[in-house]
């Protein structure tokens, strides 16, 4: 997986490059929007990590330019500015995610993985989450290469959680996902299927209960 880091501050660029490198990505770097545009048109990348504060044209203009040319490359925006306006503008322009400086390495890596995962899903219909391999259109799950059978409802819950891996999915949303299969749902229905899923996923993935909000699926410990 190749990542292009677009950052003009030496120290931050170093941290990004080395950090992502250690996480298993192949990293290139550019120090300006112009250089980045050139690099992106010359070679294939799976993700771009772009700082907003670049010397001449800023990171947002780079995103605008890319989307204008129809480039679907996932983009993670980095910025020290924290106004909601910047966040909204970045996402409006077509950036996929937004991370504020200073950030933790793990956070950065997790976000990058999530973006690449989503891109792969769009491309191939396949979602890879650590040891889980989910074939969405095919509705099949494999853990460490071994197929795992799921009931229709368990699958509905897994699909919903996996598509939003790392984000909280509300109980209502999960209820809607299951509702197609059964007319009458007991109030605990979601709970039941989540716990069954937990059993089947075991250590490969973790489904966290976020009290009062919903559930979140994360990769299991490596």
């Amino acid at each position, binding site marked *: 997986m190749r990542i292009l880091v677009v950052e003009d501050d*030496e120290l931050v660029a*170093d941290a990004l490059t080395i950090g992502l490198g*250690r996480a298993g990505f192949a990293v290139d770097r550019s120090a300006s929007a112009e250089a980045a545009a050139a690099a992106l048109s010359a070679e294939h990348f799976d993700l771009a990590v772009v700082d907003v*504060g670049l010397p001449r044209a800023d990171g947002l203009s780079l995103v605008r330019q890319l989307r204008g040319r129809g480039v679907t490359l996932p983009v993670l925006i980095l910025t020290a500015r924290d*106004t909601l306006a910047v966040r909204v503008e970045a996402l409006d322009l077509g950036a996929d995610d937004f991370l504020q400086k200073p950030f933790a*390495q793990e956070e950065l890596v997790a976000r990058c993985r999530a973006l690449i995962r989503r891109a792969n899903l769009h491309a191939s219909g396949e979602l890879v989450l650590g040891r889980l391999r989910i074939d969405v259109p095919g509705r099949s799950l494999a853990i460490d290469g071994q197929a795992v059978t799921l009931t229709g409802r368990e699958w509905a819950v897994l699909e919903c959680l996996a598509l939003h891996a790392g984000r909280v999915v509300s109980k209502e949303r999960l209820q809607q996902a299951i509702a197609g299969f059964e007319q009458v749902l007991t109030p605990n229905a979601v709970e039941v299927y989540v716990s069954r899923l937990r059993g089947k996923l075991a250590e490969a993935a973790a489904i966290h209960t976020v*009290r*009062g909000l919903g559930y979140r699926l994360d990769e299991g410990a490596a």
Partner: protein
Amino acid sequence: MAVASGSGSVPSIRRRLLLFLLPPLAALMLVGVLVNYGAAMLFVQSAYDQRLGDAAVSLGASVLVVDGRLQAAAAAPTGARHADHLVTLRYAILGPDGAVLAGTPGLPTAPVSLTANPSFADAVVGGERLRVASYRLRTTAGTAVIDVAESAAARAVPARFILAGTWLTDFIQLDVTLFIVWLGVHYGLKPLRALRAQIEAGSARELKPLDVTAVPAEVAPLVAALNMLFDILAEAARSQRRFVADTAHQLRTPIAGLLGNLELLMQEPSAAGLQPRLQGLHEGMSRLAHSANQLLALARADPSASLTVQFEEVDLRLLAGRVVERNFDRAAKAGLDLGADAAAAAVRGAPRLLEDLLGNLVDNALSYTSRGGSVTVRSGFSGGRAFLEVEDDGPGIPEGERLKVRERFYRLPGSGGHGCGLGLAIVEEIARAHGAQLYIESGAAGRGTRARVSFALTA
């Protein structure tokens, strides 16, 4: 924030106007009364005099010339001839030599007048005030003088009546005038009341320009000056926000570079022996990053920067969800049960600031609650007011400290950790900017802390 009410400008102008008008109007009333009374009395006098004079003239018929000497007719009555029932007339007929030919002796005679015959005069006889008409009759035997007198008291009745009537009408006139003036001022000042309502309705933080077209010409320059002042303040706030944003960039980028590289350094195998030192460095850097973030948040919340920041509809339930999600991993790592219990609620506010507010409350709860505890974020409506609340079952804040903790850089004695003491100061500042109140109480069952931000009643 309401403009100070009570003795506002509106009643005072009215009072000033009324106090200004009262003396001259009262004086006018007095003059009016005098003039009316005087004019009326002149008329009354002349009518009564006319009658008195007629009585004197008609008595002339009783004067006869007998043998070249004047004589009064035999049975000249001592009573009145043409008197009316209310008035008793006395008369005297005097000869050329002053001898009393008939009637009451001792009656005074009015002096001769060049213009009128009979002539009139006031006199006092035996302590009684009289009005005398004296008619001079030329006869072949000399000039006879016929005096007819009536008591001045007779004229007092109509005089009193007229005076009372004049006072009454003029007094009523004065009151009605003052009332009309009062009404007029009330009506005239209506645009000012509307202006005041406009100022009080618009949040003092938003500084919306006032409508110049809706005020009278006299106040328009004042309103224009106010709008200009608002502009200056708004521009100052905008410029301060720009400064804070620029500062954010200047601070955070170097810190991100340092922290990132430090983390990578700590992962190097060759740094194994240096771990404790590097760990210490990392903690210091994290504290620095935290302080920088808090200072920036405080600067953002300060009125000098938050004035005129755009307010929008903010969904508090969604906000609660976002903040819980953002902090979930940190809570899990600290062994804390972080959850939400959010009911639907919405307020008008600045989204970023409200995120700062709730974020700080949650940050406090997570920092000071020990492993195994729980933190709950709530939103909803209570008593007509929207609220955000964070409750934990940590050590709690002693009652005596609940005010002090809101001060900048104040930390509870004995609290370890890395806080810089700005969290609740930031919350207070943001609450104030939204017209909301921060309440700090004990949590359920008297344990822990419940920090609630209660927003203003929606109009």
